[in-house]
């Protein structure tokens, strides 16, 4: 599957295209299939996202899992500061990245 990701223009937060908007949770991301480029240009032009790009991901029971470790780190947060990730209460959340 293909996901569309970028950063929020104002906050800089990592965001994922959900099909009708942007979410900071990769679980909400949707497969953009062949439409990634078109969505990317429209959303960037509307300043709803900054520096967007398309990535490969695998569908899992828990939602999409980006294929590359870099995007998994983007999705959750730094592996060395679990308190700063999107799941600070879950010390094992980092296992998902590796």
């Amino acid at each position: 599957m293909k996901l569309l990701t970028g950063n929020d223009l104002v906050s800089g937060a990592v965001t994922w295209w959900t099909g009708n908007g942007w979410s900071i949770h990769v679980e909400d991301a949707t497969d953009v299939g062949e439409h990634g480029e078109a969505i990317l240009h429209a959303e960037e032009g509307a300043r709803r996202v900054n520096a967007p790009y398309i990535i490969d991901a695998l569908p899992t029971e828990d939602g999409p899992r980006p294929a590359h470790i870099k995007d998994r780190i983007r999705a959750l947060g730094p592996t060395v500061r679990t308190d700063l990730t999107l799941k600070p209460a879950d010390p094992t959340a980092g296992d998902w990245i590796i």
Partner: protein
Amino acid sequence: MYKYDNYDQAMVDARVAEFRDQINRRIAGEITEDQFKPLRLMNGLYLQLHAYMLRVAIPYGTLDSRQMRMLAHIARKYDRDYGHFTTRQNIQYNWIKLEDCADILEELATVEMHAIQTSGNCIRNISSDQYAGAAADEVTDPRPWAELLRQWSTFHPEFSYLPRKFKIAVIASPEDRAAMRLHDIGLELVRQDGELGARVFVGGGMGRTPMIAPEINPFVKADDLLSYLEACLRVYNRYGRRDNMYKARIKILIHEIGADAYRRQVAEEFAHVKTLGIDPPLAELERISAFFAPPAYDAANIEPDRNDPDFAVWLDQNVKPHKQAGYAIVNISLKPIGGIPGDATSKQIDIMADLAEKYSFDELRVTHAQNVVLPYVAKRDLYAVWQTLRDAELADANLDLISDIIACPGLDYCSLANARSIPVAQKIATRFADMDRQRDLGELKLKISGCINACGHHHAGHIGILGVDKKGVENYQLTFGGSGAEDVSIGKIIGPGFDEDGVVDAVEKATEVYKALREGDERFVDTYRRVGLEPFKEAIYG
């Protein structure tokens, strides 16, 4: 310390106002990201993995307690309560919002700080010896010269769009504590027949093509220095490649045309530039130098009581001789075992500021090894300083030992990185946590970069580690034999790479080989240079 005059302050204030307008226009959609990106980079604002990252300049690593407290305040108010001290003697904040950036810069400007030229293809923050003004071996204080270069290079109209970024280091001691010859220009201030001048080295650097800067001029008189540097930059600006960013650094130019040809061209350009009156009049030099006058030292020379064994270890490892009797240089390690190299919480930053104000004539230094220095501490105050540091978890006695690791932010934060650096640093430090073991190994400079850009200075590590992406999996190459000091050298790759745990094991095996083969007071790097790679390779790869 240097204090802004009205011109300095007006320039910084104007830049904040200008950037605020640019940010507003970007958020309003009046300019695109392609238009905005070079503007934000010139103001130190990057877009990294998780958010915007702001790199704040700390000129030649020097700051006072008021500025240090402001750094803590920025961490608390606008970031996530910590900052990351860098190998350029700067500080970075990892979680900045674009909408806050102008306010942050406005607050920084109130304490004579900014983020100007901490990115972009311009002359970056001038770096220097963290012991400047305190080192027993310096021929002069390099800070006035670093400040002069800061003023010369800031907003220099001719050098704002160089072929590539440009880094300058200034030292004034035979012992190189600033990796001087691994800079685009390295200056070593020296005296020749009593006259002050500089050895000028040009074309060093790390990155994907590491090079040691050759000596371009053995002695440039201090009176000619700015003109000479202007000539060095002009030749680079004229002939440096702009068609390929990987070949655009001055080291590539000098490597391609040769040091002799470059030297000749600089000499020709210098003959012209010298007629332009760029070098400052003596009065201006004296004005700047006056800011760096020695502090009002106390004549008392009271040695500290070494009865506390932990304090004694810290004294031996982290406290260095001072040129003033009765005083010492205190190194504060930002490398706790298992911690993140270079990170400090806002509370810790405040505590270091308090210590500087109370015990170090209100001055601190940031080192290129991502530590902090209190440059002027009376020996009688050392125990009190240590107690405060200990209570703040800042008293690790590991300066220059294997756990005093330089590490870039790596893939945990950096959009350029291919692999994580910090977890490797944490695992190595934890493996060697035992202080007796570390001290037995002696000076061992271990440096880790998460990509070939080498922000973690791995090329200059006695042991260097380079993280690479091997088909989507993190892999780590080991290099041995590098040094950023006066025995400067570039490390060599020892063989195939390792996974994260494998590289930690390999480092441990290398230290065992060293212990078995060392002679006398040899450091790891000395033994490696004497015996060569083979014994290490045999132990590591079997």
